[in-house]
């Protein structure tokens, strides 16, 4: 069936399966930044924004995105680059496969939380798994980026 969505500020008509998840549809339409790490909503790799809310695209049916606004990291390259610079300076990106979902969560957190504590940051990011870095380097980068000391 057909759905109309705005992806990264562009109107798009997508042909999607009735039981297809958004992560698959988006990848099929070339939004390759959207990664998939599990099938159970556990890892956060597939995080995108629907109407500016961070959402797991592996657990959202594509049809439900009809008439909604979707943002992937391709649509936020400038902001993502700002954070990525801090992350890379810390050496805290390893394979990078978890990064798009992780950064989408961070950019949403930046909009949502003012002066968060370390605990609040960790809590916000708990759904984003990473098997490479051990999280602490990422935390150092996030704190620098958020201006938390």
């Amino acid at each position, binding site marked *: 069936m057909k759905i109309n969505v705005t992806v990264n500020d562009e109107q798009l008509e997508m042909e999607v399966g009735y039981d297809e998840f958004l992560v698959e549809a988006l990848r099929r339409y070339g939004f390759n930044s959207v990664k998939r790490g599990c099938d159970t909503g556990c890892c956060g790799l597939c995080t995108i924004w629907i109407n500016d809310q961070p959402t797991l695209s592996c657990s959202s049916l594509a049809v439900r995105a009809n008439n909604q606004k979707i943002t992937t990291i391709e649509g936020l390259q400038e902001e993502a680059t700002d954070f990525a610079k801090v992350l890379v300076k810390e050496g805290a*990106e390893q*394979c990078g496969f978890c990064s798009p979902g992780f950064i989408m969560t961070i950019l949403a957190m930046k909009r949502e939380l003012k002066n968060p504590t370390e605990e609040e940051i960790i809590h916000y990011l708990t759904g984003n798994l990473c098997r490479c870095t051990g999280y602490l380097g990422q935390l150092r980068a996030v704190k620098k980026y958020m201006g938390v000391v």
Partner: protein
Amino acid sequence: MKIVNQSITKIDGMDIATGKPVYTDDLVNVKALVVKILRSPHAFAKIKSIDVEKAKKRSGVACVLTHQDVPNQRFTMAGQSYPEPSPYDRLVLDEYVRYVGDEVAIIAAVDERTAIEAMKMIKVEYEILEPVLNFEEAIGHPSVIHPEENLEVNFDIGMKREKNIAATVLIENGDMEEALKNSPVIVEETYYTQAQAHGMMETQRAFTYLDVSGRLTIVTSTQIPFHVRRIVANALEIPKSKVRVIKPKIGGGFGGKQNASVEVFPAIVTLKTGKPAKIIYDRKENLGCTSSRHAMKIKVKLGADHEGNIKAVDMEALSDTGAYGEHASTVLGVAGYKTLPLYNTAKAVRYSGEAVYTNKMPAGALRGYGVTQGIFALESAINQLADQLNMDPAEVREKNLIKQGETNPILSGSKAGEPGKLDSCTLDRCIEKGKELIGWKEKYPSQRVSDTKVRAVGMAITMQGSGIAGIDTAAVTIKLNDDGLYSLLIGATEMGMGSDTILTQMAAETLEIGMDKFIVHGIDTDLSPYDTGSYASSTTYVTGNAVIKAAEDLKGKMMRQASGMLGVPLKGLRFKGDTIGVINHPDKQVSLNEIAADVGAGEGKQEQLMGSGTFGGDKSPPPFIAGFAEVEVDLETGKIVLIDYVAVIDCGTVINPNLARIQAEGGLVQGIGMAMYEDVLYDKAGRMMTNSFMQYKIPCRKDINKITVAFEPSYEPTGPFGAKSIGEVVINTPPPAIAHAVFNATGVYVRNLPITPEKVVKGMMESSK
């Protein structure tokens, strides 16, 4: 050093961090067939009949393959140098299925939905056999897991197929009976380490097509591109010259991609149909149908005197290799080879064991590769010895540890009658520093912090190797381009740890010029120089040495070129990176650009400049770590909170402190996962219960508090700029150190990983009886 030992940012960091399409599945830009696998529901069965007619006829299905359609050529998926020590016990599809999830049929269709629908139309009749699920019952079990006659081994690894023994190992030195007799204090315990999953974020995947000349091209997320070429060619009985393997960026490996787990499936589809094909494992397949760490049972017997001098170390291992023997003999052996040399005062050491087949998912390589298992057993026993002697465990270690300059007959590089020498080791200083950082003096062994809570500390040490001596090899080529830029051609696989960056650092340091002058190429077996692959902690050490050789070679060629251009003999010239100058004439020089232009000037007499270097080590210098854990245990619930983990590392010269630190933190967290949370579990029928991240718990952000990483550099004379490895050694200490801390808090020794609250509470209840 200007570039080495600096925290240079990763050269591909921005691309991977900002979501650029650089991974295997991002690069599939043609309509590829989607490959799915029908898997066995039984732990052990023989396929009586298989009916695929209906599935084949479904529109959109390109092919359906069963064991009748594949070559009868046994192979191993283990990515090791030929001749591999892993048995050739696999077929692409077999008439026997040996674990729940084993491959029964390959289906390729225009899309995933069609493939899955077709899969459901396949009818299989099985003759169900009695499975071997408990690895302690495998030897001599009435069920023989590999009854086939054409199973092959490349050399004697002590396989006894009819008894389900895949490999046997024995390492010994000194008179064990005598040493034990002279040991008034004995510790004898049995330890169990579980199967651990790699849990890399990008699951196994590959994409295949025929190029214009009909060669099979495989784009795959692998650690071992050159081995994949050989494995696929052998398994599918096609000439190696017809196969090309390309490795793009990969989303983590940890040893899980040191097996060619998936490549043969799309490859055979492409060969049969002529069409591009791709396979993407989902998480369930990644956790349930690839490989895991070898679960082991290790018996340790230590002998010592009352002063804490260790006289004897005797270890006996049983390793569960699952349905296939990937890495069976080597992981088993490494658990002994890289633990026995630690306590060099011992008069006798022995390590023996068997790796056995069972009807479970095969085991394979996983970061630490047996040392993780062996160290848990040995270090736990050492801690128990200290407790028995009423001595500080750090002191027991200091008394007995191998030290820089000492020799040991089990160290890699040893020959008969000529024990290997340890050229670099700061382990004693690592222990000292670690004690300070964790506050050992004040905190050891424990403090009561409330009615129900106790805080305690524990420790462990470890070593690993750097590449495999006499086997691992790497070649590197550096090409001077026409525009004065260097192309760095390497065959080692970057998988996120930053190897492309640190290898470039070494090239830049040697060629005395900035990192921005280098272009690094990903792996393409058609073009890249040979490298055994990124595993066994070999990249920094093995490929790094090759980088230096290649850079020196190119430097020499550029000097000769400059000598001709300047009309000055070589010894009158000095290499300064961007220029080569005449020593006595500061203004007489040629620049890199001029040299590049000169060789490219087409007068037909210049040689294009390329430097190459090959390295294979005859020793595998061990990095060392002293690890310290501080835990808080709730005595009512057994809940363990890891408060702090300190690791002090001797990896020789640290090539890139930032990247080394993240590598260490990541490995420690993976080790903490193994110590406390991760466990591959099966039900009674042999079905894996932990094949999703819902049930298989890798650590999340909330599981990790403080981790402190520090370095105590040594200088390894055979290493590039004095470097050793770091990739694997970092995972080893958490299980024994945390077990020790939990013991100091509760008096309960958990000898069966993971260390869960239930086991702690149960232990406390038993000891209060």
